[in-house]
């Protein structure tokens, strides 16, 4: 009994440290990938000075952010002001608990894993709203209001798409959803046309919603630096801003993880050979790269078009997707 208890504690500590390290590593090196990628997309070099090929740049960035003074403007609600970045980062880290990186690598194998991920992911917008509100700044307030409208608009199609996937898989357990997709890439949910001919479209819509949910360009209404200074982050400096930044990238990683699990077969190999965490990471980072690629390809959409895209196109199509899935399940 006692031995088991010690082992359980050790397991928890190991996973907490592991997940925190994973989150920190991703946040810092995805920023580098973003900077390098954006530079290469625009025929520039990107950071090259710190370390070989600029590989130590994230460390320099982190040191800079940590050393910067944290300015607190007048009339700021200090408690909310400092709570906001934590409220944005924490749910993203929490969701990592249930992501299955491999057949045996998952901190907790919840039966309701998928539900938990989306329950906590919805919290993200709350943190940004609090941050914008507490900043006592008109730009931050405007950005926060826009983000709420945006996130509500995009949460609905995301969940509708996920509901369709869950109807197919019949479970909320992420580990089981991956296990069902074993045996080659034609068994992945994205290509299960026998279950629902709209599955690739559903994946595409999920990806669009992922961009909007994580506030990435072309849907980066939260920051919108050309319109609202730095949006909800206007008054944040130093590491408080750094935490918001980390949260953004952690949310991207989380969204890509969920997309990999739901549509791309998780840790399954496309050809049925050597399944394992390497496949998961490969697919996940390919998606992350696509997120960056999209950011540097398209300009920011207008706010009304953003809402129109969700309410007029994504929600009707995802509803049709659910009906179609239901029909296919009933008929076949």
């Amino acid at each position, binding site marked *: 009994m006692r031995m088991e208890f010690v082992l359980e504690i050790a397991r928890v500590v190991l996973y907490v440290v592991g997940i925190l390290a994973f989150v920190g590593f991703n946040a810092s090196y995805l920023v580098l990938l973003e900077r390098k990628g954006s530079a290469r*997309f*625009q025929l*520039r070099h990107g950071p090259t000075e710190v370390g070989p090929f600029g590989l130590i740049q994230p460390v320099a960035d982190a040191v800079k952010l940590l050393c910067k003074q944290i300015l607190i403007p007048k009339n700021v609600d200090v408690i909310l002001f400092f709570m906001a970045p934590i409220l944005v980062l924490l749910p993203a880290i929490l969701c990592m608990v249930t992501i299955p990186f491999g057949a045996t690598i998952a901190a907790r194998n919840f039966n309701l894993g998928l539900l938990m991920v989306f329950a906590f992911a919805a919290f993200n917008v709350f943190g940004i709203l609090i941050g914008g509100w507490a900043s006592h700044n008109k730009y931050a307030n405007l950005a926060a209001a826009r983000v709420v409208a945006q996130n509500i608009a995009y949460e609905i199609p995301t969940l509708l798409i996920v509901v369709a996937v869950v109807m197919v898989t019949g479970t909320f357990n992420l580990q089981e959803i991956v296990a069902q997709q074993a045996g080659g890439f034609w068994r992945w949910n994205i290509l299960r046309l026998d279950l629902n001919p709209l599955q690739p479209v559903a994946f595409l819509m999920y990806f669009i919603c992922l961009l909007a949910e994580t506030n990435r360009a072309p849907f980066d209404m939260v920051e919108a630096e050309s319109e609202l200074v730095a949006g909800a982050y206007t008054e944040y400096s130093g590491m408080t801003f750094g935490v918001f930044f980390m949260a953004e990238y952690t949310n991207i990683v989380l969204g890509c993880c969920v997309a990999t699990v739901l549509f791309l077969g998780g840790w399954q190999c496309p050809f049925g050979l050597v399944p394992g965490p390497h496949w998961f990471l490969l697919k996940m980072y390919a998606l992350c790269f696509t997120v960056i*690629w999209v950011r540097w390809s398209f300009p920011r959409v207008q706010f009304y078009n953003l809402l129109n895209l969700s309410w007029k*196109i994504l929600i009707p199509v995802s509803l049709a997707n659910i009906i179609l899935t239901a029909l296919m399940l009933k008929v076949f």
Partner: protein
Amino acid sequence: MRNTIQEIISGAYSLAVGMKITICNLFRPTVTLHYPHESATMPARFRGHVELACDPETGKPKCVVCMACQRACPSGCISLDGQKSESGKGKVLTAYSLDFSLCSLCGLCVESCKFDALRFSKQYNLAFTRREECTFNLLERAQVKK
């Protein structure tokens, strides 16, 4: 309805085209230079500050101290001095100073020189903290360059 579907399809197509353009850029060589480590080569007709052209055989400036450039300069930024050469024929340049803070790079001095002894340099990395630094000793510069 039909219009909407058409719009979605054409929009998606144009997005795909955009993404293709950026991914192609990813594999193209960069156009920027690593500035402090590399610097751009200036085109042939670039006008930097003037410099003295040297005779490739003797390595000495070709200038014969005719003063044409000093006279041609509308801003009066050139001043030069020479002395009788040891062989007794012609003059040898002893000092050539250019006040670059006055120079407008009009090129009249280069045009006026009948001996091709003046030309535009390709120098563009010029920054000064004091006014005196804007006055170049071109004779020294020509010798350093050599």
